[in-house]
């Protein structure tokens, strides 16, 4: 379970996600369904996901493509409306009926950094306008000179020069662009950043610069991160708590050290086994068969059972729930029954 941040149990976690589900209707049009006799089709991108993030911590969400990581991110920042479940920011419910003032209050404390620094900026805007847009939208600074001043501060904060504000995005390399996205995200003084694969499009030497910058900003500004990545080594480097997702569900949640030292869910073990061996220890790998199934027609029971070496009959019928086992929350019948 998540540990309390230290200032007593009274303060709620900064963000709490409870039984979050997001379903997408991907049916064909009404007429086509009638003509071909097809039923409605629903894609369960996220299915009953719960986790908490304490203030100042980083929650890493890891999984293969199509497992619903990015959907979680988008629901959390409010780009999608959840199908079921709720999200609490400092103990207060978001996405409720009172959408409006509450939403605006939360919006200006939460920002998102996207994966592709080439696609997340308008190529025809100068960098200073890109960074100033949130400031103007939330009316956080008045007057040209005040905004200019703030943009210059932000550029310095992310390791760029104030004169870079006059340039256009194409004049920057991938790493510099990601710095600009970070500056834009920080422009409204948020408490909480959702980072969706922020370094996946970057080269390794640049990735290290961005990860260091993000950690430094976290220390300095007390930021809280929801950090999404498919790269386990990056998740290991940045996270305090880690959640592993598979086909829309969380299969294991634990503190970083616990998860990496004693992984319990067979899928977590599989993922850790696929990490290339850069220490050259000549570790023997277990080859893993199969692929991630189609989320439109996920297998019944535990979604992982067709690939799982520990699967039994129960796994193909009953979906396991997250239960605590030692210091870990894990959704696996085999762990629960003590077979693992």
């Amino acid at each position, binding site marked *: 379970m998540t540990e309390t941040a230290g200032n007593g149990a009274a303060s709620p976690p900064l963000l709490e996600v409870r039984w979050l589900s997001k379903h997408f209707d991907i049916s064909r049009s009404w007429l086509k369904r009638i003509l071909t006799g097809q039923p409605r089709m629903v894609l369960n991108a996220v299915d009953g996901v719960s986790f908490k993030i304490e203030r100042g911590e980083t929650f890493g969400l890891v999984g293969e493509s199509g497992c619903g990581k990015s959907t979680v991110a988008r629901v959390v920042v409010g780009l999608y409306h959840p199908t079921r479940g709720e999200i609490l920011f400092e103990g207060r419910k978001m996405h409720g009926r009172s959408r409006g003032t509450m939403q605006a209050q939360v919006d200006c404390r939460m920002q998102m950094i996207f994966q592709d620094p080439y696609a997340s900026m308008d190529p025809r805007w100068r960098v200073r306008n890109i960074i100033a847009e949130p400031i103007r939208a939330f009316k956080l600074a008045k007057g040209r000179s005040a905004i200019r001043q703030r943009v210059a501060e932000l550029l310095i904060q992310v390791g760029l020069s104030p004169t870079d504000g006059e340039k256009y995005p194409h004049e920057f390399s991938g790493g510099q662009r990601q710095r600009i996205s970070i500056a834009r995200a920080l422009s409204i003084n948020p408490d909480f950043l959702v980072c969706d694969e922020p370094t996946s499009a970057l*080269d390794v*030497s640049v990735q290290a610069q961005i990860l260091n910058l993000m*950690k430094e900003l976290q220390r300095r500004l007390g930021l809280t991160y929801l950090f999404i990545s*498919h790269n386990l*080594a990056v998740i290991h480097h940045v996270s305090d708590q880690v959640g592993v997702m598979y086909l829309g569900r969380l299969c294991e949640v634990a503190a970083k050290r616990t998860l990496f030292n004693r992984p319990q869910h067979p899928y977590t073990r599989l993922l850790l086994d*696929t990490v290339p061996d850069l220490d*050259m220890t000549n570790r023997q790998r277990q080859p*893993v068969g199969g*692929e991630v199934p189609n989320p439109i027609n996920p297998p019944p029971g535990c979604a992982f059972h067709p690939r799982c070496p520990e699967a039994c009959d129960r796994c193909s019928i009953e979906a396991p729930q997250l239960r605590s086992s030692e210091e870990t929350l894990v959704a696996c019948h085999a762990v629960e029954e003590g077979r693992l």
Partner: protein
Amino acid sequence: MTPSTPSCGNSPMSLLDVEHLRVEFPTRHGVLVAVDDVSFSIDEGEVLGVVGESGAGKSITGLAIIGLLDRPGRIARGTIRFEGQKINGLPKEAMRRIRGAKISAIFQDPLTSLNPLYTIGRQLVETITTHNDLTLSQARGRAIDLLNEVGISAADRRIDCYPHEFSGGMRQRVVVALALCANPRLIIADEPTTALDVSIQAQIIALLRRLCRDHRTAIILITHDMGVIAETSDRVAVMYAGRFAEIGSLRDVIKSPKHPYTVGLMNSIPIIGHEIEDLPHINGSMPRLHEIPPGCAFNPRCSRAVDRCRVERPGLMPTGNPGQMASCWVFDKESGNDGNGR
């Protein structure tokens, strides 16, 4: 510039010998040099990993070898010898007969390497009959064998499927099967696993390794991912701004890198189990092709750069470890350095 002996291979005649390769792209704003003075050789059954950041010239090197450089790109200097025969500058038709039959390629995105309008069977049979003297039914039999070999179950049924009916990992297996149609001696695999999920990536890597062992096929594996290299390669070449920064055996390059760039690169990769607050990183980023600095291309980012590095360009020099060479003045014998470059 030191005219280094390019051959790091062991046999007197390697399968592929590349010497002083230089690829240029003439543009309106001057000539861009994408690959400069690249020399290496590869033996049969060997996997040479070529690693570098995007824009380092890895893919261009691969395309130059297989003769698929897009205009206006051209090989301005150097020779490429395959089985002792010079293959750069061959007439189109002669090169076409080598390509596919003796040297084949696997590219990053399996969806764009396959024709979406034809069944995979038709694509395989077409490639097989182009390079072998087989009847259609024999070719179909061979296609099924190939699909089985790359690990596609129920191959006799799935051979009549279209590419969109396959998942990403399965498509990449089909692309590998296509590359194997004519039993090539050399496969150039350009980021073959980058578009795939980690667990599928491990399967494709295992497949490539097995092919290499069973058929004595040589592979040039081009990737930006040091992890993939560590799992597959026998030797590694590190590219930076169009040049080889370092080449050597896998173990040497990963465990005791010599070139300051490789050292920085290896340090900046987060590794599970290593608890560090900040990753050591290299400042700045790789220069774009039109602004490569004089001297060593890495000098503006290098903490050990001296005046000579800003003026004179280093070639590959022996580092003391057998077979490991680095383009860094630290290893210059004449300057009295003992080669203990770190």
